[in-house]
């Protein structure tokens, strides 16, 4: 971390998560971290390195390898007044805890008519491009964004990681906090010093443009920006929206952008069928069909179970900045 001014520090996404968790632990004795290898190992990405030395084993809880109960125990802690931050080591390992998240955490407030609540965060690294193969690469957001009672956040930039993670930790309801692995050390940025929050459900226009709206989140925001800047040199003007928050999602920013550009390209790494892009497309079709000058297009992962380990299989699954640029060109010229 480099201090560039009195007001901000340059960090990567790992450092931003780590700094935010550290401050949360300092600020509130009710906060505990529970997950696999979060203690002595300091998390497999070193996000919680040395936390256990400062905060103790009772607050940085190394669990047995048992994802359902990592989430389930955190739910019980939250129901009884603690503020747990559960970690699923890789998003691919979240499936054993599916019922605890969907059947229990998301319904605790609802089924008890508000008597019991579940203020907790579930953090998990997701996404590909890191040679993670079938079980260390998946995107899971579409499996969960269907579920009322959950909130889902997927930031792309270190400053958003901090502001949104602070919001998630303060939130009175369960929040699934998705961290794209490939961005962990690749993406650096200025992060304001001190405590701040960013509201959920607010997208960010990360590049303004007039001829096409691109909506994305996670790693692909950065690749879409790279592609959009290349098109800028070709004289084509593309607006890029970083959703940041997947449930709730920001309707106003998307529709406002379409009023200007009249064309929509949705880019995500998760596969296309039933993905986030499907919901955005449906919303735009319902609310802004006549603002469109071209069919909506989705550039997404293919409908295969996961990306393979071998380099060609991973590359074939992922959309490259060049592919994104080509899709943008076609859309602008439509």
């Amino acid at each position: 971390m480099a201090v560039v001014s009195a007001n901000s520090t340059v960090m990567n996404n790992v450092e931003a998560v780590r700094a935010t968790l550290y401050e949360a632990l300092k600020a509130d004795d009710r906060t505990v971290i529970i997950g696999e290898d979060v203690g002595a190992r300091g998390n497999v990405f070193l996000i919680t390195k040395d936390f256990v030395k400062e905060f103790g084993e009772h607050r940085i809880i190394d669990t047995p390898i048992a994802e359902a109960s990592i989430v389930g125990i955190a739910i019980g802690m939250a129901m009884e007044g603690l503020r747990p931050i559960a970690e699923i080591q890789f998003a691919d390992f979240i499936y054993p805890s599916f019922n605890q998240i969907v059947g229990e955490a998301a319904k605790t407030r609802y089924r008890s008519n508000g008597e019991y609540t579940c203020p907790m965060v579930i953090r998990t690294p997701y996404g590909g491009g890191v040679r993670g193969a079938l079980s260390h690469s998946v995107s899971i957001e579409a499996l969960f964004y269907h579920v009322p009672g959950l909130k889902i956040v997927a930031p792309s930039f270190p400053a958003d990681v901090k502001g949104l993670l602070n919001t998630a930790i303060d939130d009175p309801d369960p929040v699934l906090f998705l961290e794209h692995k490939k961005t962990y050390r690749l993406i650096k940025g200025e992060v304001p010093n001190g405590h701040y929050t960013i509201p959920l459900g607010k997208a960010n226009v990360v590049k303004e443009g007039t001829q096409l709206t691109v909506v994305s989140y996670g790693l692909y925001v950065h690749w879409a920006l790279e592609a959009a800047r290349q098109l800028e040199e070709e004289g084509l003007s593309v607006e890029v929206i970083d959703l940041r928050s997947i449930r709730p999602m920001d309707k106003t920013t998307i529709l406002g952008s379409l009023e200007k550009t009249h064309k929509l390209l949705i880019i995500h790494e998760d596969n296309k069928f039933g993905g986030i892009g499907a919901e955005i497309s449906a919303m735009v079709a319902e609310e802004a069909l006549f603002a469109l000058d071209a069919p909506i297009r989705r550039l997404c992962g293919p409908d295969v179970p996961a990306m393979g380990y071998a380099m060609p299989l991973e590359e074939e699954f992922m959309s490259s900045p060049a592919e994104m640029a080509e899709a943008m060109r076609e859309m602008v010229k439509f």
Partner: protein
Amino acid sequence: MASTDVSTPTLQRHGLSDEQLRAIFRNMLLQRQLDNRGFQLNRQGKVPFALGSEGHEALQAGAAMAFNRGRDILAPYYRDLGLCLGIGLSPYEILLSIFARAADHNGGRQFPNHYSSKAAGLMSFSSILAAHLPHAVGAAYAIKYRGEKGRAVLATCGDGTTSEGEWHESMNFVSVHKLPFVMLVENNEWAISTPLDKQMAEPQIWKRAAGYGMPGRRFNGFDPIETYAAVKEAMDRARDGGGPTLVEGTCYRYLAHSTDDNDMTYRTREAVTERRKQDPVPAFEAVLLEHGIVSSADVNEMRQSVLRETNEATDTAEAQPYPEPSDLYTHVYEGAWQPWQS
């Protein structure tokens, strides 16, 4: 019944006073009355569904007596009417759940028997078996984390739930962390239609305690005093920082799984009738009469007061309004979040 015995054996009461023994018995009578009421209301077409706990009366009334109100936490499952009554829920609250009225703790959202009451220390739970156990573990962790002395979590389940992965995960974690936790298994021999021998090769569930490195004990769940003693010992150990215990009470499910089940498709009436001979309600009545803790007149008065209380609760609860259609939309989140924010 006249007896030719010259001496009545001394009752092993494990510190329970006459008043507590009568309270246990009254709880058992109330359970049976409320159980029957749920089934009656279903057969009258007034409620779509009811669940019964018949056969669990002694186990639950005895275990509830080992629960410290205002301190302990109960994480029950859906066949725990007597435990919930025993820790302080009223027949009126039970009937509100059966009728799914707005004043129910769950606002009429959950099935009957899925009670919750934060005031009573009764954790909200779903119908998904064993999913509540990690929550109970988390609650026990919170108690230990805050250094709260003299509190423990009593978690319960049936034999069926012990096959779930989260049962194992919970038992393992509480033992690793020596949490103030008691796992009470109510072994009624049936997981809806599946008998014990198709659920597990070793039917003595308490023996698994050794594998988790915690004390384990089996007791006769038809005997409320033996139940009380076993659960009290385990809860006291948990409250004193001695860690978790697995206790298994044997009992029997006299009724079908629910009003929607026909148990004659998988067991015989003769088999159930045979087990009825051990019915814990008349058996405990006989013990109390034998030892002069109640008189026949007392028992009659108790039965009448339980019926009266159940009738009054039924009438009062039935007269309460349903939730409004607009209540469907409340308590999804704190505040009015919509999936699309504008």
